[in-house]
């Protein structure tokens, strides 16, 4: 199955959907920390200047303001780079938003390696683990433009804190119009019996590519997409664990406590099978163009196929023994 790639990057859809939601929800406010043309909240700013709040380069205050506004009945979308939401302002996100369960929707843009040339100070390979470790916060990483849009619509019907990822990547078109997003629901994109590849965000495209490579050598790989990391689709994980007995996760994130960690926590509790987690190891995403980063850190269809192949062989040996 040949994937088409979106003409518009995810961040553009983020901005457009904010404008769309702004028309439907007068209580929706957007807050920025001097990044609006990068995050694309500028689109909302142009349409609703009175509902756009510029907090300057002060992320702690950004989230404190968003919390105070939410306490008055507004639904606030404070937006900055993932690094500054998950790292710089984590205390404010926890104590003023997560703990009191306020209605704040946090968009972490330039997530994972997608700050690219910005280098390790901006690339953020820990936001999923950090946000997942907080109480009451839903954590998501959309796979394509339609899913991001559906996700943002779902947020407005879902009270409480939500963290979701945005990037400047042109995502593959995984889904058709009318695609539905539900918190805690994943999607089986491809059936398979030997191994299951589980992706989140745009990395699911890599999983689909790997499945194709594996298919060419007669290995049947299922592919699942997990846009909702907390809560995560335990049922789908269980189904794949039973069907294949071998899972490989791939994420634009460090391999500690993110998608791989969340999946391992579920399988270890309920369906003990092998889970091989692919992502960044105990290091940082250096500065480089996206294509070079994907290759250097071996987050490619070829690399994933190799890991999946090794795991299926291991599984065969184990069952043979």
């Amino acid at each position, binding site marked *: 199955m040949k994937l088409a790639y979106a003409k518009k990057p995810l961040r553009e859809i983020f901005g457009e959907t904010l404008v769309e939601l702004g028309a439907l929800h007068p209580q929706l406010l957007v807050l920025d920390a001097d990044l609006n043309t990068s995050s694309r909240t500028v689109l909302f700013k142009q349409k609703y200047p009175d509902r756009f709040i510029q907090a300057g380069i002060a992320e702690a*205050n950004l989230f*404190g303001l968003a919390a*105070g*506004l939410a*306490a008055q009945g*507004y639904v606030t979308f404070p937006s900055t780079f993932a690094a500054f939401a998950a790292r710089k302002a984590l*205390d404010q996100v926890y104590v003023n938003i997560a703990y*009191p369960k306020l209605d704040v929707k946090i968009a972490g843009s330039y997530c994972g390696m997608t700050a690219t040339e910005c280098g390790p100070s901006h690339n953020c390979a820990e936001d999923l683990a950090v946000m997942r470790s907080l109480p009451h916060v839903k954590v998501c990483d959309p796979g394509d433009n339609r899913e991001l849009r559906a996700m943002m619509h779902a947020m407005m019907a879902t009270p409480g804190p939500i963290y979701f990822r945005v990037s400047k990547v042109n995502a593959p078109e995984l889904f058709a119009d009318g695609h539905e997003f539900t918190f805690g629901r994943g999607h089986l994109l491809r059936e398979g019996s030997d191994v299951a590849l589980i992706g989140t965000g745009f990395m699911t495209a890599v999983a689909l590519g790997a499945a194709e490579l594996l298919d060419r050598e007669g290995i049947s790989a299922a592919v699942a997409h997990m846009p909702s990391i907390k809560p995560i689709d335990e049922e789908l994980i269980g189904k794949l664990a039973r069907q294949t007995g071998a899972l490989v996760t791939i994420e634009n994130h460090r391999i500690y406590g993110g998608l791989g960690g969340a999946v391992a926590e579920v399988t270890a509790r309920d369906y003990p099978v092998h889970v091989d987690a692919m992502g960044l190891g105990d290091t940082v995403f250096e500065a480089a163009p996206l294509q070079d980063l994907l290759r250097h850190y071996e987050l490619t269809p070829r690399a994933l196929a190799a890991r999946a192949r090794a795991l299926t062989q291991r599984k065969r040996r184990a069952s043979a023994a």
Partner: protein
Amino acid sequence: MKHLSPGQQRVIADKAFGVRRLCLEFITAAGWGHIGGSFSEAELLACLYSEILHLDPKKPDDPRRDRFILSKAHASPALYATLALSGFIPVDRLFTYCRLDGLDGHTQRGQCPGIEYSGGSLGTGLSYAAGIALGLRLADNFASRVYCLIGDGECNEGQIWEAAMSAAQYRLDNLTAIVDYNKVMAKGKMSDLMAIDPLRDKFAAFGWTVIEIDGHDLAEICLAFHRAKYLEMNGRPIAVIAHTVKGRGLPEAEFNYQWHTHAPSPAQAKAFLADLNRTYSRNEKFSRKLVAPKDGGLEAVVTADLK
């Protein structure tokens, strides 16, 4: 400009004394709490809840209410006591302080009427208060005002200055910050640990109108808040720097960081009440017999299970 009648003065003074007495009681019963910062803010809270804040205990969520944010949330005992003495919560509730399903050691939004903010991490309250003030503006609510009480040590936190900068940028003159300038932080004197002087210049340089007062003088306090409310609506947020005495009312605790966070024994509490009565020439008693709690901790729990 409104002045305080002797009658009003008495009501407020009674409330401030009651706050100190109750704090002594339920902090002793809980075996935990911040006396120093509760006693330094007693008059400020008594004035706010008697004369200044538009609040109705029967309608604690009235959108047109004034908002009070205790950023120095560790000093919640004085706030809880003030709420009890202002009809927001029954006095008995105070004795659930630091118990499961009881009042939080700091503050939890919505845990009891009158608590607007989940606090405890210093430096976060003024941003939250500025957010509320901004929200009131966006809702065209010009009736309500926002008051945020911050600690002097808390002014070490950079977020206070981020919030100050943004409140000036947004021209939030519906926001009043009050600094409980009691000269002492958790482990010593501000001047020794991390000085914030000249504090007036700092707030002025950040675009605020500054009013400096004696934070234990009821008339000065009320006058300052009236000025903030009626005279200073010029687009600038207002900082009331209240010079106070940490632990005010207890000779042993005054300016003494060792009473920043420490609960007295029942015996000490009795002696402290005597001190309070002496300081404020009164003759009040505790409402109940005080017993110190004990926490057997990990050992108690493990050994109990193994019995």
